[in-house]
């Protein structure tokens, strides 16, 4: 593997869902098939050891991307490449299995993602057994104890059941389970959204520590821009199934290009009480079943013109070193952003 090959790459990734009514209803009511384009052409790369975050509001397709990357959904179009190998084109189960154990996923709801009938030690050991990494009971036990310590729990906790733990502790168990097959790449879908802020801080710190110690690569999905800013090296902003901007975290927050990114940043409550002026943006995310023509953001965009209504913008390099898909940015007709302190 050359130094330039990214660990994970998504190429024109798309996933459509058929949400039509049953055939009989369609015939009687004379309605056509309905396709929901949850993700429609997303490209990104993740380098080894870095954290890429995808951020956006409900329904923008960020969780669908996470599921596509780990293979829980098959892409309708496009590919996911792991070290340059197309995951959809693997011919044998063995090849697939070898690749699969190198990545894991952490889910949002620590109540739903742990089997309530299993002891914690068995939950954590499941990936070890599933991937046949070890068959030796005492070896597995030793590994589970080590993992429990690594995520800040005690080895004795392995004998308990999930209901004996709080939300934050359950999320630690999820992380221990994800780490048990020694993965290189973790996909985290809103891992702290269900947690209180002080517990969220514990989990975010833990994830950063583990990343440093184990050299992990993260794809991090969240709707919370402040959390994303804290944890990420690079950030992709999604809107209605497409990436609208992708840049280094610092550059994105200091010098956001796309009007939607600016709007999201302005909507973050101001905890420094600096009295920063906010530009309120009206409107809501449109119905994804019937997305606007051209640029999907144009009905809410203060800089939209005729071109935005008809021509869909593509990702182009921007002044902040990233890329954005916006005609107004490309034509340099955006007003400079109100300076924030």
């Amino acid at each position, binding site marked *: 593997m050359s130094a330039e090959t990214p660990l994970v790459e998504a190429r024109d990734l798309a996933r459509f869902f058929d949400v039509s009514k049953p055939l009989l209803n369609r015939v009687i009511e004379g309605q056509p098939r309905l396709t929901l384009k949850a993700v429609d052409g997303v490209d990104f790369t993740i380098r080894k050891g870095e954290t890429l975050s995808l951020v956006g509001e409900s329904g923008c397709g960020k969780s669908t991307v996470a599921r596509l990357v780990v293979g829980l959904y098959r892409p309708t179009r496009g590919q996911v490449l792991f070290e340059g190998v197309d995951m959809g084109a693997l011919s044998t189960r063995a090849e697939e299995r070898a690749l699969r154990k190198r990545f894991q996923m952490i889910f949002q709801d620590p109540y739903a993602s742990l089997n309530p009938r299993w002891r914690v030690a068995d939950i954590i050991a499941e990936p070890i057994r599933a991937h046949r990494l070890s068959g030796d009971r005492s070896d597995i036990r030793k590994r589970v104890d080590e993992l429990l310590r690594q995520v800040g729990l005690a080895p004795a906790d392995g004998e308990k059941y999930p209901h004996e733990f709080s939300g934050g502790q359950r999320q630690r168990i999820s992380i221990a389970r994800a780490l048990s097959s020694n993965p290189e790449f973790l996909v985290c879908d809103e891992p702290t959204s269900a947690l*209180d802020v002080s517990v969220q*801080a514990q989990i975010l*710190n833990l994830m*950063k520590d583990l990343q440093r110690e184990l050299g992990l690569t993260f794809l991090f999905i969240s709707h919370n821009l402040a959390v994303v*800013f804290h944890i990420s090296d690079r950030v992709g902003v999604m809107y209605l199934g497409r990436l609208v901007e992708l840049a280094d975290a610092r550059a994105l*927050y200091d010098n956001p290009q796309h009007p939607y990114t600016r709007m999201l940043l302005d909507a973050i*409550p101001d905890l420094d009480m600096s009295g920063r002026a906010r530009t*309120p943006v009206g409107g809501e995310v449109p119905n994804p079943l019937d997305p606007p023509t051209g640029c999907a953001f144009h009905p809410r965009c203060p800089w939209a013109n005729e071109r935005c209504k008809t021509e869909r913008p593509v990702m182009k390099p921007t002044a902040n070193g990233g890329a954005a898909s916006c005609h107004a940015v490309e034509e340099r007709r955006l007003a400079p952003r109100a300076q924030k302190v």
Partner: protein
Amino acid sequence: MADRPVLEVKNLRVEFPTRRGTLVAVDDISFTIAPGEVLGVVGESGAGKSMTGSAVIGLLEPPGRIASGEILFDGRRIDNLPYEELRKIRGKDIGAIFQDPLTSLNPLYTIGRQLIETIQTHLDMNQAQAHARAVQLLEEVGIPAAARRIDHYPHQFSGGMRQRVVIALALAAGPRLIIADEPTTALDVSIQAQIISLIKKLCRDHGAAFMLVTHDMGVIAETADRVAVMYAGRIAEIGPVRDVIKSAKHPYTVGLMGSIPKVGHTEARLTQIDGAMPRLNAIPRGCAFNPRCTKAFDRCRMERPEPIVVGSTAVACWLHDPAKQEAAGGVR
């Protein structure tokens, strides 16, 4: 008296009798809200913030009950009123907004019918007057084409629009006090900002007192005039929002503020408070926060701190007791 508080809560205690003993969800808290003021009540899950809100509007779920203390609305006690009398106040003088707008609206009736029903229950208006007021309310909360939308059903509105309808319902009878429990939590960030600015504007325009219960310090910072930080059923710190956020005095508030990731700050790690909030059946002796507090000393483990006035805020922490030095043991 012009500046008499709309709501005054004195030494409120909410208990849940269970087979294994009584759980105290809200323990001896006091606060007031003045007309036109927004009081934020913030805390993590299990802090008792929602319970406080439910107690004030008399909607505690049994077996929960108010064990002691008083709730005064406009100087009149409402915690011991018979159900029917409280019902007249609730809805007319006290409006409520809950987290999930879908559960607050009846899916079988148009929003117009629900608004008009609420208006006619509490105000003496005929159908045409009530209809006109309903349209006007919907316009006020920013629903486009209100005259047409009034005949729509709740499911025909998006989440943000539904929450606006719920706010219109809460305002229908011109309440003096509005209690909102996590009104923006179910909404996306861009919609959240819209609802926050709407709430602020309405409070200003109507001069109503507002009790905003939330877990989100950001929402508090944007909306509230004063804030009460709750921990394990008690108020840890209460004061003007700027003072509490900028120079928190209680170690819990300090930790809480440090644990919130902030855009533009590049510290590698967040401040974390180790451990978790105690369960209601295992609240530690003395200050409930002492096992997690880095500054706890002997007195904190023995004696429960009462609010101590420091400048414009009141802090329930022995660190701020002028007589601290006389107490046994030093800091740390």
